[in-house]
């Protein structure tokens, strides 16, 4: 085929494409039923787009949390719904990837025409949707993602951190080690990514406030294989406590290496380091390594403690299986959404819902502290408890710890 004809053809359809876009934009007919200005709401139902990583390597963070949220919405429906409307949930798999998450959210908004989006277990993926939901003015309420980059600075349409941000993690860790363990020189190990950057920020601020100093700041990749180098530096730094905010693989390697080096000082880990205590002990390889070991948690009790039983039993009854560690984190956002939908009145709009959600004051019975938003606050939860674990059993350390770093330190 001759070049000139192809050229003409391309030019022609470029024009046609532009024309069609013009036509399509003009063609956007308003819903015949003008009763509701926003999509996703009718007399009988409210449509919620619910997404989490349901496949791939992050499945463990999201799958059960999403099911827990669904469990909550089903219960609301069983009790008659909200202002007579049932909640209809559309489920999507965001695979913890920014591109996939954005695709799922776009599908929810433009094809499924949901009223609001509830989802996201991975911060860096959830951030991908922020610009889009802001442009489209769609409420985006994260599931169990920490969401630091998307809630600091806060924007109107994005709500998150129902389990606490990474700032919560960093700040409360330092609060704990300085106040309860009397630490003055802290060795800090984090990941070399957005997580690490965010928790370190709050940790440093808190250390300065509490008269302590961070004498070693080691950033490791999530895939690190040999932790000899960071642990050597930590040992040489003269620290009196080690704080670990990595994920569980590197954390186990670090605790193990510390034990090999005969390091005896306390080790305090963030919640993301110890999703499964039994496996963690096996990975470290010895109970003796836990002589002086603590970990933090945003829950109000041990993961299988008495205060958490009602959620676990409920989940087991609903789905006939034992939940994975992060399951109960899925409930607070559903609770907050249902409450805000109610408070927004019998004929809610998206904007009305957002105003109601921003005024949330909620005690979940699951988390260490209340869920609170505000006009300029989009991170919902800020509290941590700490638990001492000796390789066999856990004991809760009394007290609730917070991150006190202001929005702009």
């Amino acid at each position, binding site marked *: *085929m001759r*070049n000139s004809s*192809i*050229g003409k*053809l*391309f030019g*022609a*359809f*470029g024009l*046609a*494409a*532009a024309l*069609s*876009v013009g*036509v*399509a*934009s003009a*063609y956007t007919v308003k819903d015949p039923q003008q009763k509701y200005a926003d999509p996703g709401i009718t007399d009988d139902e409210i449509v919620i787009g619910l997404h989490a990583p*349901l*496949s*791939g390597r992050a*499945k463990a963070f999201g799958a059960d949390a999403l099911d827990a949220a669904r469990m909550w919405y089903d219960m609301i429906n069983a009790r008659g719904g909200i202002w007579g409307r049932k909640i209809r949930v559309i489920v*999507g*798999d965001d695979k913890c*990837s*920014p*591109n*996939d998450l*954005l*695709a799922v959210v*776009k*599908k929810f*908004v*433009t*094809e499924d025409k949901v009223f609001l989006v509830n989802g996201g277990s991975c911060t*860096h*993926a959830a*951030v*991908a949707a*922020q*610009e*889009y939901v802001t*442009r*489209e003015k769609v409420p985006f309420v994260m599931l169990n993602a920490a969401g630091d*980059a998307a809630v600091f600075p806060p924007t109107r349409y994005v709500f998150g951190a129902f389990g606490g941000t990474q700032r919560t993690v960093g700040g409360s860790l330092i609060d704990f080690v300085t106040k309860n363990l009397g630490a003055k020189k802290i060795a800090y190990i984090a990941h*070399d*990514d*957005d*997580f690490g*950057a965010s928790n370190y920020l709050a940790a440093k601020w808190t250390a300065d406030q509490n008269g302590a100093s961070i004498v070693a700041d080691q950033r490791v990749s999530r895939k690190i294989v040999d932790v000899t180098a960071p642990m050597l530096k930590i040992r040489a730094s003269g620290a009196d406590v080690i704080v670990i905010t990595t994920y569980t693989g590197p954390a186990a390697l670090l605790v193990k290496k510390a034990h090999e080096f005969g390091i005896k000082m306390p080790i305090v880990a963030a919640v993301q380091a110890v999703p499964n205590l039994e496996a963690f002990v096996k990975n470290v390889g010895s109970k003796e390594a836990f002589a002086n070991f603590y970990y933090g948690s945003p829950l109000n009790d041990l993961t299988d403690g008495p205060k958490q039983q009602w959620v676990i039993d409920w989940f087991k009854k609903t789905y006939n299986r034992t939940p994975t560690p992060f399951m109960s984190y899925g409930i607070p956002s559903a609770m907050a959404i249902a409450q805000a939908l109610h408070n927004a009145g019998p004929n809610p709009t998206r904007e009305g819902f957002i105003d109601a959600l921003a005024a949330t004051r909620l005690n979940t019975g699951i988390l260490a502290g209340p869920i609170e938003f505000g006009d300029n606050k989009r991170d919902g939860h800020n509290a941590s408890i700490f638990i001492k674990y000796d390789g066999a059993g856990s004991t809760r350390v009394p007290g609730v710890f917070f991150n006190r770093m202001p929005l702009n330190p």
Partner: protein
Amino acid sequence: MTNNRLVLVFAVAIVAVLVAVPLFGSIYVVFLANMLLMYAVLAVGLDILLGRAGQFAFAHTAFFGIGVYTTALINNHTGLPFVLTIPAGAAVAALVGVIIALPATRLRHLYLGLATFAFAEVAHWVFNNWESVTGGANGLRFQPQNTGFGTITNDLQAYPFVVVIAAFMIWITRNLERSQLGRRMEAIKESEAAAHASGISVTRTKAVAFTISAAYAGVAGGMYTLFQSYVHPDVLGFDTLVLILSMIVIGGLGTLPGVLIGVVLLGLMPEAMRGLKVMQELLYGVILIAFLMFMPRGVWGFFGPLIFSRSERKPAEDKP
């Protein structure tokens, strides 16, 4: 039907689909189309290097990333129209491509592949760690791009521009195929020794191929900023590279229709599999292997000769 008529029919069909998408599809469908068009430019660009010049180079995602960040940053800071920012992104990518090309031309096959792959991973690490410029692991947010008459704020508005850019890049490829440069690349793919003997500057041809390929990736990066609003280094890594590679190999290495078919097939496969949850990875791998086992020359290598009668095919298309 004669070959020429057949091609005309296909071309008209493609145009029809492209026009139908925004008219009858939801904005989500338009978004998918935007993604596929961007992947088309990426895939065609890699094919120039891999399929036509025969260079096993896998640094493509590095140039893609350079294009994305450059275009987005210039736009974020100056708000210049995209007809300026996208070529700027492509130019920077091409520049880096030239720098890479010079040492790369000394390497072949396995070593070239590994070196360029390592370069892509180093670029990924830089994207992740150079916070002050790329936003690091927090990603980079884009301001809406400027058309000169207004800004683009959604997929529908971006679509016609994405289409035109993709069409333009494909048109260039078509011209490249038939040009002297194209023939030189073909020659060095066949045998560098023979090409050298017949007076072709092997090093220069390779370098040019690298640069052009990088420029394509840079343009694709610019396209990304037109319809997306955020980038995270993870979409600039190994998985994307494998996706593009699979597209061109399964579609048909070295053939334009093949590459485009591969883009559509592999680009839409995740959408089709979205409901399958756990089995996705497994299925993806099985499909990949199955295609390679039964159509090692790609879909186009398999179906092309069936659709287009042999006698009428031009000599250039007759090459295996």
